[in-house]
């Protein structure tokens, strides 16, 4: 190999390695660094993300710019995590939304005004002692018992999955009975899929129960078109008789959606107190300091034009009566049984 050729080979290798070296094992460093996690920047990041992606300012008549101006003055460099968390939590509290939380390693902010200050209207001990008794069935997450030829179903969380086989068993048990009571009081929500599955057991046709729209951009009017939400009849066994859904202020989120699904069916009634709401599906985010948060990014309207966020009204308003409760009687459940008799 002559000297000229050797130079060429060496040069080729240098070019080869040179083209690769900037990238070798420094993948992370070729992207922009993380944003600063100082209190001021963390505050601005959260305020701005809520400003751009929160869907219910107009519904709740909230001036987020004014809220930001109020709380911005409370943030200063060097404040500790607890103090910053407190300011951010207080700011988010102004959204009056149960789907809004800020989560750090030491606390989780929340606004529970949707049930706090209202009558509980539910007593689990009474349900267990008087109505479920000892011979009730546990069909997946659905506790059920036949009371006076009525199937009573108690569902504690829409986060607990209902399978088709659970529903087959439930429909088999309801066959020939006078009616079905679905008790979702104190059910704080979970998966809409479970709500749809359960409601489909009572649908005799497809019902459009609401319309929703989602934020599609940072502007206040950047929303998708209104998309119909529907519940279709279940494939397999269904129950065509009267259905009562028991709700209270602690029936939230997926429970409100389920209540609205049932409310549009002519053979179903809602008894108790209105639901707590929770009509906005939460989007999740993370702050530059690693704290997580969520807030509503959709709006949901009933066919009458009411926002599910403000709660689903009942057909028959009924509170638990203190004296009856003392005697172990659930006034709301008794109203449902009377209605079905």
């Amino acid at each position, binding site marked *: 190999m002559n000297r000229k050729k050797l130079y060429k080979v060496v040069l080729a290798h240098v070019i080869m390695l040179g083209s690769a070296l900037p*990238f*070798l*094992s420094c*993948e992370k460093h070729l992207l922009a660094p993380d944003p600063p996690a100082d209190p001021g920047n963390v505050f601005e990041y959260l305020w701005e993300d809520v400003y751009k992606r929160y869907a219910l300012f107009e519904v709740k008549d909230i001036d987020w710019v004014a809220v930001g101006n109020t709380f911005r003055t409370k943030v200063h460099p060097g404040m500790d995590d607890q103090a910053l968390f407190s300011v951010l939590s207080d700011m988010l509290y102004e959204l009056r939304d149960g789907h809004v939380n800020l989560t750090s390693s030491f606390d989780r902010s929340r606004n529970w005004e949707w049930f706090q200050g209202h009558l509980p209207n539910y007593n689990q001990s009474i349900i267990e002692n008087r109505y479920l008794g000892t011979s009730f069935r546990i069909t997946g997450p659905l506790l059920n018992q036949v009371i006076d030829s009525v199937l009573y179903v108690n569902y504690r969380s829409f986060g607990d999955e209902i399978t088709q086989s659970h529903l087959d068993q439930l429909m088999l048990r309801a066959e020939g009975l006078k009616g079905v009571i679905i008790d979702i009081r104190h059910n704080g929500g979970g998966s809409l899929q479970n709500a749809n599955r359960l409601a489909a057991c009572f649908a005799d046709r497809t019902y459009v129960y609401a319309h929703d729209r*989602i934020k599609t*951009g940072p502007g206040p009017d950047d929303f998708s078109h209104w998309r119909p939400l529907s519940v279709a009849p279940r494939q397999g066994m269904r129950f065509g008789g009267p259905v009562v859904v028991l709700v209270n202020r602690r029936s939230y989120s997926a429970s409100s959606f389920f209540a609205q699904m049932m409310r549009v069916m002519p053979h179903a009634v809602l008894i108790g107190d209105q639901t707590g709401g929770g009509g906005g599906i939460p989007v999740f985010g993370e702050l*530059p300091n690693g704290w997580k948060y969520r807030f509503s990014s959709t709006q949901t309207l009933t066919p009458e034009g009411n926002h599910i966020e403000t709660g689903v009204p009942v057909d028959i308003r009924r509170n638990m009566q203190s004296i009856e409760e003392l005697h172990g009687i659930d006034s709301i459940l008794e109203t449902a049984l009377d209605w079905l008799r």
Partner: protein
Amino acid sequence: MNAVRVFKDINVFHSGFHTRCILLMPLFFLYSFIGVGQVNKRLELNAGLLVSAERDPGFSPLLFAGTGISGYAAYSRETEAKSNLVDVFYARSSLNNRFGSGMDVHSAGIMVFHFFHDGKEPGKGLHWGWSNNNEFSLRNNESVNNFNNRFDYVTSFGPAARFRHPFTLFGRSFSIQAIAHMQLLGFVMQSSYVSQAPKGYEVETVGGLDIFRRSVEWFYPGRAWNIGVWPRLQYQLETGNLLSLGYQYGYSRLDGAHRLTKSRGNWYLGIQAGL
């Protein structure tokens, strides 16, 4: 007048133009593999370790970095005049941000290269050509309950260059090769501002192809970037098969509802056999 303005002026953004372009893509592939004369066909299998960093502001402003695994199968076909390479790949990585939150990323795709030898030896020197990248990527953030599984899909075209240099060391045959590509024009479909679904699901459509058409956006410099550098060292076995040790670096940026950025390096070992 910038590129965006030009495209808007000829009114292709809101027409069926890009849908037709996508439907015509298979013809590009077919054209690439039409050739005559002496043909050298090879199949290559690679397995690698992925080092990756990604940022999807739809989830978090923080960078997620970590490692994963990859698998590649490549088919190459060389004639005197040109060479083609089709690279089918899958990669999976588990990434974390500096606070420990996790995100799993799955990527799969097909990358096509087409190099013209322009009278030079196929196995030596610099060859220019073009490339086509088709990649789907899915991100699952473990702390997100709704609107999770954000995705992006890219089909793009751009120039490519390949440098090959064979050499002998201790009486054995080696070669080094580097491929570089830069994607310039194509199509993108990705998760929207809040939802994981593409834009077409957020506007009123007549369904089917209309949803697809409204979800597709242009890929062009300034709005999207994708470059790659793939150096590797090959050793020829006595059987004629080749063993490879290589590294594939790729950087991509998509400016959609959020600015998605990715930087990935893949160290791999492979074997190549003649067909």
